[in-house]
């Protein structure tokens, strides 16, 4: 099962997911956090990274003195799992409830609405 991430952990994961390279280096994350306006101490980041490793989100490979981090869970996988979790919790597993709430609550922009519509039709054809 994919575990939940704390805000700080999610922040780090976003940086790692956003990295076009296969592996991410410690300094890259450090810089990324500073760029997002959330700088932190080196040891704090080490602690957070080791938590992510324990949760199964990252794997670390030690090469000499530097650590190379690789993602084990992709952003979409995490989003799907979290959405499912959210659906179960708030809408009792009903996707319809969620979508209707999005539409009725005026939470979608017009382009987003059109795109979703297209997506729905495409999905129907496939079935």
């Amino acid at each position: 099962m994919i575990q939940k991430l704390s805000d700080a952990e999610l922040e780090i994961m976003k940086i790692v997911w956003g990295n076009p390279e296969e592996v991410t280096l410690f300094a890259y994350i450090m810089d990324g956090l500073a760029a997002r306006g959330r700088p932190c101490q080196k040891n704090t980041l080490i602690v957070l990274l080791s938590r992510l490793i324990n949760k199964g989100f990252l794997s670390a490979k030690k090469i000499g003195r530097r650590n190379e981090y690789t993602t084990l869970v992709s952003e979409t996988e995490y989003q799907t799992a979290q959405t499912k979790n959210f659906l179960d919790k708030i809408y009792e597993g009903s996707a319809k409830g969620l979508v209707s709430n999005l539409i009725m609550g005026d939470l979608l922009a017009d382009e987003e609405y059109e795109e979703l519509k297209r997506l729905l039709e495409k999905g129907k054809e496939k079935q």
Partner: protein
Amino acid sequence: MNTVLKIFLSMSFSGGLLIALLLLGKRFLQDRISRQWQYYVWLIVLLRLLLPFGPETNLLGKTYQAVDRAIIQTDPLPRQASLNTPGGVPDSAAGLEQDNETANRPAEDLTTVRPLQEIRSVLANHIWLIWLAAALGMLIRKVTVYQGFLRYLNAGLVPIADIGILDRLSVIAEQAGIRKPVELCSNPLASSPLLIGFFHPCIVLPSADISEKDFWYIALHELTHYKRRDMFYKWLVQVAVCLHWFNPLVYFMSREITKACEFSCDEAVLAKVGCENAQDYGKTLLDAMAAVGKYRENLGAVTLSENKQLLKERLGAIMNFKRKSTAIRLLTGVLTLCVIFGASFIGVYSTAAASNQATDEPLASEWSKNATQEGTGTHSKDYSSQAQRYYEAGSLPLFEIAFSQLDENAQREWLEKLYTNNDISFFSVAVQVLEESGALFLDDFAEKAYLDEEIAFFSTLTDCMDETELEDWLDRALKDGDWAFQSVLFDALDRGDEFDELEEEQEKAQLAKYQAVGVTMEGKNYYYQGQLVNIFLDIRPDKSFYTLDTNPAGTVNIKIMRDTDNEITGVAYMTEAEVAELFEDEEELDDENSPEIIPVNLKKVAKKQVIWLGEYTLSKGDRIWYDVSAKTGKGMQIGFAKSGDKRLKTTYYSVKNLRQKGEPLKCTANFTFGPPVKPGKYKLFLRATNNTLRNIKGSISIALEDASLFSAQSCG
């Protein structure tokens, strides 16, 4: 009683004395001396409790010798025992108390005493099992309780996600000089802030909702614990408590150390934050105590505060905190030295002391005189059965005591028995006892050992010969031309150099004789009629001595012919059958990987000299056996070294042995080559580590995992 247990009892007792001393001293000095010192001074006590080392002569060693004798003596002669165990002999050994009980009872019917004795001896022999079982049980229980506590704590552990707090912790850790990242979690079940993890520190807070100042103090306190490795200290204490479970004082010590740990930690924190913050720090302590959880078991975890009583004392100490003056520091220095000195002086009962008992105990010799004067035989019989018991149990020191009480005839019988049983270690102990009393019949045994060529027994006996006797023997050995005995006697007379000269002469004479029949020697190689010799064999007719030299580069196999008078008559080529017979032993070892056997037959290796025995390519899984012994000499080492390492800076799979009294000097071992030693070329060596080695015989075998890769290059 078991020797190990005895040593332990004495460690426990001397440790107990130290504990009592420190507890007493604490009453007077508590507030004047650095808390740090009060905490670490217990380390000395712990070492005393856990390490069975100390100087040779010490207080307890002597006491224990007296106790030992008392135990022996109570058995057959109750009235003697009550005389010999002074009331003040301190000991908590259950076995001894029992002894005294029965001993003090007025003379009872012998028939009822006998079975009692049996039970007692069984109890005394097995009491160490009870001790060990209890100690192990306690330790296991402590570990499982701690694990249970960790499980309980881990179940509700929530990592603190607030980067702000984590950052503050990182900064505090950096200030405290801790390089490792520290994990921070919260758990409402924790009664107070605490630190877990031996190598990966984790601070557990009862709640994440905490003021910045409180957090600062708490983190500083816990990190100080981590920095000082208090967890290891605490567990060391627990191990000592488990091993010394029968000693009530160790429980006091454990409690004192827990207290001192917190006190000294407070002191260290205050030294860092400054005494003006003492009040704040005290308040944090109080707040931390306000929320007391349910789980009381906090063994092994370093908590911020242990209980309310302790808290009160700590608050008092915190408020009184001031930096120590130089005078006080000087005083603590002196005190430390006193405690260390005390610890080593009290010492422990050492086995060495036990084996010297008969020599440095006036009481013992007096007693043995009594025994021989009374010479009623029945007593001797009792001692004889005891000696038998201890002999069977393999207990040298106890055997020595029992043996010293025997009358002369019985001693002689024992000596004969040990001689025929070829039991050199017991024999040498017995000889030591007799050395004191100067028993005449030792000469008979020397004669016997000489005639039987039992060089090891003979060398034990030389210890109790005076110079003239030794010289007489040497004359005889020189006349008989007996090399081994000459070597032992020269060594005993401290005239090893003369022997070397003599041997050199002899060697030259030998070479001249070889030359007369056409065998020449260059360096280490033998040549026969211009051909390099592969196998050179020279067996004396009486089989007393033989020379075997193999050189794989050689082409011919020869043997020296001798007549019955030991004179060389000629040289003959060895037949295939003879060669096969010679290496018969080795062929038995043959398996699919047929081990390479490197025979070792060296007449002499000079002091510190290194003999190289060829170079071998070794890889993972190769098996190596050493089985080499030296007839005379003190220390021998066999092992491998890298090809370029002439001075043996790094040795691999090396075995280094010193001669133990009354045992042959031997290096026997077997290894399987593998990591961390890297495969490659290694040179095999043999080294005389102490003095000159003589008559080194045996073999070293190497079985390669993959026989096809074998590439032994030379032997010699």
